[in-house]
């Protein structure tokens, strides 16, 4: 019995250590977006993220061969390794889903650290839905956030405005265990605006954690 317990303990510690040491992610990525005017944007390529370099690097093959680097608040576009243009970036790499995948913080998306309070837990079919109430200063804008888990993995995030209507929905599915990390390989998003809805589906495949070498792409020169 003791041997079994020790074996289990070592395995568990090994997985935890692996998860904590994860710092790099590489994957094939296919992203589809439908804008409010019902036109589409589609891209295919590879994504590279290194927590230390703090850069998300997309190496696209479609719609054209180009690299997009997100660093801090700037998005850099390169064609043939030549900088074509820059624009403002609203997705800070340290607050991206790729960062949460590596740090293992997908379960509450940082809500606990943001002074949200879990006020209700209920079971809906095969989902366990936890309702998070925002801090006082956010209540005029946001009434609650529901986080649904399925088999102890985060499945959905739903944000409601002060009238109780859904304004944003994210679904994470098709989890794969890679180097001890549970990586959702499909992310569905819907943002509801008065003029229409923006939809996005992100599909990851061939996920590699902590790839050795290739430093020049993870820390792409700006």
């Amino acid at each position, binding site marked *: 019995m003791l041997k079994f317990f020790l074996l289990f303990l070592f395995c568990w510690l090994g997985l935890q250590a692996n998860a904590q040491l994860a710092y790099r992610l590489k994957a094939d*990525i*296919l*992203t*589809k*977006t*439908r*804008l409010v*005017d019902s*036109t*589409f*944007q*589609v*891209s*295919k390529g590879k994504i590279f993220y290194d927590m230390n370099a703090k850069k998300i690097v*997309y190496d696209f*093959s*479609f*719609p*054209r061969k*180009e690299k*997009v680097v997100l660093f*801090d*608040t700037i*998005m850099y576009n390169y064609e043939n390794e030549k900088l074509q243009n820059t*624009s*403002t*970036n*609203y*997705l*800070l790499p340290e607050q991206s*889903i790729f960062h949460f995948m590596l740090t293992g913080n997908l379960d509450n998306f940082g809500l606990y650290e943001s002074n949200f309070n879990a006020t209700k837990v209920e079971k*809906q079919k095969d*989902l366990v*839905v936890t309702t998070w109430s925002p801090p006082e200063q956010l209540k005029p*804008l946001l009434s609650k956030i*529901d986080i*649904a888990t399925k088999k102890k993995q985060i499945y*959905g995030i739903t944000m409601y*405005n*002060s009238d*109780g*209507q*859904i*304004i944003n*929905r994210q*679904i994470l599915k098709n989890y794969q265990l890679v180097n001890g990390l549970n990586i959702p390989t499909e*992310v*569905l998003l*819907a*943002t*509801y*605006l*008065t*003029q*229409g*809805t*923006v*939809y*996005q589906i*992100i599909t990851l495949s061939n996920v590699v954690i902590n790839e050795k070498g290739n430093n020049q792409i993870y820390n792409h020169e700006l």
Partner: protein
Amino acid sequence: MIMKKVYTKLLALLMAMILFHLQVLAGATPSATASFDADNAEAEIYEAFNDIDELVSLLNETDDVTYETLKANNSVLIENVSNSAAVAMSAQEKDGPPIVSAFLWGCVLNWVGLLVVYLTTDSNKEFTKKAWTGCLVNTGCYAGIWLIAVLTGGLGGALGSFYSY
């Protein structure tokens, strides 16, 4: 240089707050009022992409295809598909300002919206012009309301009560 970085970060924070506020004020579509319904939520998002299933299948099968090669062959697969890359977790109006159109930025937020559009589109003339139009429409609406108020005597009463202090 440091000031520029601080300024850009502040602008990003301001943009995030404005976007969040706009989204919250915007309300939701009728279909978005139901409680969490996993099956319907997934189906709604998947169905939004039915029109580009063939393009996605082609992309999954080959690594060589680009937008230009499809365009050169007059492919119907890129109908309604722009040549801008889709960046994960981010949705922009082609190369324009984020989420809402340049016109709305100008119309809703007036000169602040104009500034946002100017800065986020690298001073793109077309988008800035749209924002200007929105700005002028907004100003025109206010002028119209003011004129109606003057004609109906509402403003006189308001001014009268102001000057009585």
